[in-house]
C-alpha cells in the first residue's frame, strides 16, 4: 500500500540518483500514482534544476584565474619567508635587541618624542646669572659667621665648714640661761660674747663673706648611690 510519508523519504534518493535501477523504476511508478508525491517530487526536482542552472553563472570569467594562481603562489611562498624570519629571531640577544620592533600607535609615538625633546631641552638649558639652579654642579661655599649667644652659666659653690661640737653645746646653754636671769642683761652679754668669739676665731657659723650668688639659680639634686658614703 502506498504511503506518502515513506515515499517522501525515498524521494531524496531518487532526486540524487542514489538508488539502483530496479528500485528507481518501482519508486517512480509509485510516485506517478500519487498526485501529492508527484507534486513533491517535481517541485524538488525543479529546485535542483534552478540550482544547477546558476552554476555556470557562478564561475568567474577566464581572466580571473591568472590572478587567483598568482595569489596562491604568493601564499605558498609566504611560509618560506616566515621560516627566514624565525631564524632571524633566533639571532643573539643583542642583535635581537637592536632588531626588535615595538608597534606603537602614531599619536602615542609622537607624544613620546615631543616629551623626550622637551625634557632634554629643559635638562640641558643653561641657567642665567643670578638664578640658582635646583641642582648645583659644585659644592656650596657659604661664609661662616660666629654668633655669640648668652648662655646661663652654672656656678657651684663649695665651702667646708668645721663645727666644734663642745663649744656649740656651751653656746646653746648660754642662750638658754638669760631666759632664766633677765632679758636685758642677757642680750648685752650675748652680743659681747659674740664679739669675743668672732675676734678669737671661734665663730662657727657659715661664713658667706665674699659670696656672690649667681644671676640664675639652678637646682641640682645629688643622689647618693654609693653605699660607702653612709
Amino acid at each position: 500500500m502506498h504511503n506518502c510519508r515513506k515515499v517522501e523519504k525515498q524521494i531524496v534518493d531518487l532526486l540524487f540518483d542514489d538508488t539502483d535501477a530496479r528500485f528507481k523504476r518501482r519508486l517512480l511508478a509509485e510516485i506517478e500514482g500519487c498526485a501529492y508525491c508527484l507534486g513533491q517530487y517535481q517541485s524538488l526536482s525543479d529546485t535542483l534544476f534552478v540550482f544547477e542552472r546558476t552554476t555556470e553563472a557562478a564561475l568567474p570569467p577566464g581572466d580571473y584565474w591568472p590572478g587567483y594562481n598568482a595569489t596562491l603562489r604568493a601564499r605558498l611562498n609566504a611560509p618560506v619567508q616566515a621560516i627566514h624570519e624565525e631564524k632571524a629571531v633566533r639571532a643573539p640577544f643583542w642583535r635581537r635587541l637592536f632588531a626588535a620592533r615595538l608597534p606603537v600607535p602614531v599619536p602615542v609615538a609622537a607624544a613620546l618624542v615631543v616629551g623626550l625633546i622637551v625634557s632634554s631641552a629643559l635638562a640641558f638649558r643653561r641657567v642665567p646669572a643670578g638664578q640658582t639652579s635646583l641642582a648645583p654642579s659644585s659644592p656650596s661655599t657659604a661664609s661662616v659667621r660666629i654668633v655669640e649667644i648668652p648662655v646661663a652659666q652654672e656656678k657651684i659653690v663649695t665651702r667646708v665648714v668645721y663645727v666644734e661640737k663642745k663649744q656649740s653645746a656651751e653656746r646653746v646653754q648660754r642662750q638658754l640661761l638669760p631666759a632664766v636671769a633677765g632679758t636685758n642683761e642677757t642680750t648685752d652679754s650675748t652680743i659681747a660674747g659674740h664679739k669675743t668669739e668672732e675676734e678669737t676665731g671661734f665663730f662657727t657659723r657659715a661664713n658667706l663673706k665674699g659670696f656672690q650668688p649667681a644671676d640664675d639659680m639652678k637646682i641640682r639634686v645629688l643622689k647618693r648611690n654609693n653605699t660607702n658614703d653612709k
Partner: protein
Amino acid sequence: MSLNEDELIKAAQAGDRDAFCLLAESYQRRVYLLALHYCRDASDAEDLSQEVWLKAFRALGGFRNEASFYTWLRQIIVNSFLNHRRTAARRWANNTSAVDIETLTETNDANGWTVPRSRDAEGDIHTKILLERVLEALGELTPQQRLIFLLKHREGLTYEEIAKAFNCSTGTAKKALFRAVVKLRQRLGVEVVETTEYEPCAAGKNF
C-alpha cells in the same frame, strides 16, 4: 613537457611549489565553486578556497595514493569549510536591496548614450539574478545542511561518505539533505503543483 597527476603530486611532495600550483589548477574551479556556494561571497570564496590549497600543500606529505587526490582533498575541503569563520553571513543578511532590472538591462555606448543590452546579455542578467536568489536561499540553511547539500548535489558523495565526514549516521545525513532541499524550494519559491489526474492517496491526506 607536461606531467601527469601522479608526477605532479610527487614533485609537490618534494616541495616543488610550481608543481603544486599546476596540480591546483586542475581542481581550482571546482573548489572555488564549492566555496562560493558555501560562503555566498566571491572574496570569501577566494580566501577559503586558497586556504584549502595551503592546507593541502602542508598536508601533502601524508597523501599515500590510497584514494584519488581529489577524494583526499575533499576531506580537507570539508574540514576547512566547517572551521571557516564566516563573516559574510551578516553581509548577506543585511543585503535586502533588490536588483534593479532596468539598470542591468541598459548599457552606455561609445557616445555615452544609454542603449538596451542584447537579448543574450538579458539572459545572462536573468541568470545572475537567479544566482543571487540561489545564494540567498543557501543562506537560509545551516552551515552543516548547506555543506551536506553541496557534497551530495555537487560532489556526488554517498550518504556513508557524508556521514563519515560529519561523524553522524546515514539517516541523519539523509534527513539533513531532505530538509535542505525543502528549505531551498521554499526560499526559491518553487511551487508544488499537484496534478488533478491522480487521486491523492489516503496516507497523503494525513501528511
